[in-house]
């Protein structure tokens, strides 16, 4: 392996001297840049920063160089993150290209497919969306009906997908479609890549009870994909889809504090306790309301336990143990814990948690109310808690069907 220290030095040189020299100001660590044909810029320099980093493959540090990646090993990648943190720089690029379809292509793609798609992901040229769920295929994903019919060297796609995250902002979609209705439902499913910028594809945002619209419905009427964008072959899409779902579940687990989140919450004082003090006052240095104080302690302790379990899991992986279906517990517990945290915050704020907009409520109150409403979906999206419990019962506990 290369000498980590020399790597750090040349990286620092690039980040501290060369980049500023070329770009002038660099974007701050806040605000994610998702790239794409119609990129949203959290900072005027976000795109140029991304491109400059991409030249060295630093948007996808561990991907092989031949596909535009940085070809770094784990230690070097850690150094990169450390340096970015040290210099207060953001990740140059985020998105489902890097987190979902990229790794999937590296695992299942042909040489041509990798060469065609990975470099564009690395450079942030294409923003990707996921086409999985359908109105009648939620927990029972394999019963999907959106169809792809072979027509020469193209596939003709009809049907509907739902819960497409940021579908209205995406350029290409990776998804699963039915190419054969006979036989077992898991068979006859094909994993496809398709360009969403075509007449046969229509995207409609879905408004949630929280008022936000992070998801979309996608309608296909004779949309077209090229057969060279079939991943892992006709009828073998289910294998690819399941592998990708694994990445997704772990990703969600991370978001809900199994990673940094919950751990930092604890280390950086206790915001719940601060909120309680603010709304309930204190007596003798303690939160004045003993029941809510106890509830704050309970949630804080559960978050600490959850973070410790995530650390134990990470330490076990470092020690060479394989990740198993136990990781389902992070999805279940992390999302439910987030919901409980929000319910607690409602209780702490009392009637001030009831605002939707306008006078009488401050911004944090209004935001928290919406976050609470949004959190109700956490235990549904990305595999419901019920499905996760089934997985644990079957694959971890070995209980019979």
């Amino acid at each position: 392996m290369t000498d980590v220290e020399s790597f750090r030095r040349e990286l620092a040189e690039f980040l501290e001297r060369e980049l500023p020299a070329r770009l002038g100001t660099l974007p701050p660590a806040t605000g994610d840049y998702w790239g794409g044909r119609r990129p949203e810029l959290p900072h005027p320099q976000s795109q140029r920063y991304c491109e400059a980093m991409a030249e060295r493959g630093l948007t996808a540090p561990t991907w092989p160089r031949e596909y535009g990646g940085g070809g770094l090993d784990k230690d070097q990648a850690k150094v990169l993150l450390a340096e970015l943190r040290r210099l207060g720089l953001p990740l140059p690029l985020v998105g489902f290209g890097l987190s979902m379809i990229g790794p999937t292509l590296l695992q299942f793609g042909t040489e041509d497919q990798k060469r065609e798609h990975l470099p564009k992901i690395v450079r942030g040229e294409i923003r990707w969306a996921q086409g999985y769920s359908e109105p009648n295929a939620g927990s029972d994903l394999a019963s999907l009906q959106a169809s792809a019919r072979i027509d020469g060297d193209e596939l003709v796609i009809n049907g509907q997908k739902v819960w497409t995250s940021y579908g209205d902002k995406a350029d290409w979609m990776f998804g699963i479609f039915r190419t054969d209705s006979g036989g077992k439902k898991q068979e006859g499913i094909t994993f496809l890549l398709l360009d969403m910028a075509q007449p046969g594809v229509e995207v409609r945002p879905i408004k949630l009870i929280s008022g936000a619209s992070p998801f979309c419905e996608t309608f296909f009427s004779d949309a077209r994909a090229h057969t060279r964008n079939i991943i892992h072959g006709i009828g073998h899409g289910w294998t690819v889809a399941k592998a990708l779902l694994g990445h997704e579940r772990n990703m969600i687990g991370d978001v809900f504090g199994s990673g940094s989140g919950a751990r930092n919450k604890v280390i950086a004082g206790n915001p719940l306790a601060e909120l309680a003090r603010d709304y309930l006052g204190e007596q003798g240095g303690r939160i004045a309301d003993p029941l809510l104080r106890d509830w704050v302690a309970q949630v804080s302790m559960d978050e600490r336990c959850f973070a410790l379990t995530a650390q134990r899991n990470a330490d076990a992986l470092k020690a060479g143990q394989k990740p198993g279906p136990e990781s389902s517990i992070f999805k279940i517990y992390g999302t439910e814990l987030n919901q409980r945290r929000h319910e607690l915050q409602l209780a702490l704020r009392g009637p001030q948690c009831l605002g939707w907009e306008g006078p009488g409520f401050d911004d944090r109150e209004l935001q928290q109310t919406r976050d609470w409403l949004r959190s109700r979906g956490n235990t549904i999206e990305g595999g419901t808690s019920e499905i996760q419990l089934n997985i644990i019962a079957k694959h971890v506990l070995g209980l019979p069907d």
Partner: protein
Amino acid sequence: MQLVLTEDQTLLSRTANELVAGSASVARLRKLRDTRDERGYALDRFARMAELGWTGIPFTEQDGGLGMGLAEVVLVTEAMGRGLAPEPYIPAIVLAGRAVALGGSAQHKGAWLGPAIAGEKVLALAHAGRRGRFDLTRVPIRATPAGGGFRLTGQATQVWGGHLADAYVVAARTAGQDGDRDGITLFLVPAQARGVTSERQHRIDSLNAAQLTLEAVEVGEADVLGRGGDGHGLLTRVVDEATVALTGEMLGGMSEAFDRTLGYLRERRQFGVAIGSFQALKHRAARLYIELELSRSAVMAAARALDAQSADASQLVSLAKARLSDAYCLIANEAIQLHGGIGMTDEHDIGFFVKRARVSEMTFGDAAYHRDRFAALGGY
């Protein structure tokens, strides 16, 4: 106390459900919300409720009412809860109206209660500030002596049904301080009075609410409800009555949310079967059903106890509000989870119940507040 409906009550319940319940009614609330309707409810609907006599239920005949009680009120509010009817029946009639009926002079009743029962004027009651939480001794309006009377100054928040109301029952602090039961006086203040401004508030349930600001509003002896400085008792009494009316509404709301969820469990198919056939979901549904049954008993008992003014009436009010708060929120959360993704969409109606559940929980005291009150009233 008989925990069973009389024939008249059964009839009233049926009529009420015909008029205000049913799925169309949620569409009505949705429309009022999406068109940003200025009032947030339909005056003509409210007038219709008056025609049917519902607004007169909790008042004596000499006050122009029907001389019935909360046992009947909760049947009306249960139907309103099922249909998420936004009309201010509870705040205008049960809360403010009853305050005028119990504490008002002949003039007050002539000028305000009569028209309120007739559905021609809308009353509201203002007693809570932004940091008062559920404590009825922490009123945000201060009354300072001025000439023969008082000047009222301060801001009340989340005044239910308070936007475009014609007059307000205002709980003001005439003496003492937060925590004191003495020194609170209820005044009847017309919306037109100088120094009165109300501003629409938008809460998650899309029902009518307002922030009421009083700036040196002049009031006199003639505007006092009940005895000056002695308003806490009256306020507690009408809040108890409105709380029971609200638990009736909550019972209707959670029953409707539960029924819709059951329907979804029967219809929604995954893995080739109705998801209602999965035992884990069956058991959860059965547990919710138990909560519903216990909730109904609590509401019926609290209403009858208040009507009979029995010794443990206030305890039963807290029993009902604590249980309904927990049960409605539980059922609402489970309703979304069991609906899955579709339940998270604004397009689906179930979300309206989830939002109404929270507002109801936080109105007139949450479960913890009422457990504490139940214990205190029980002498421990």
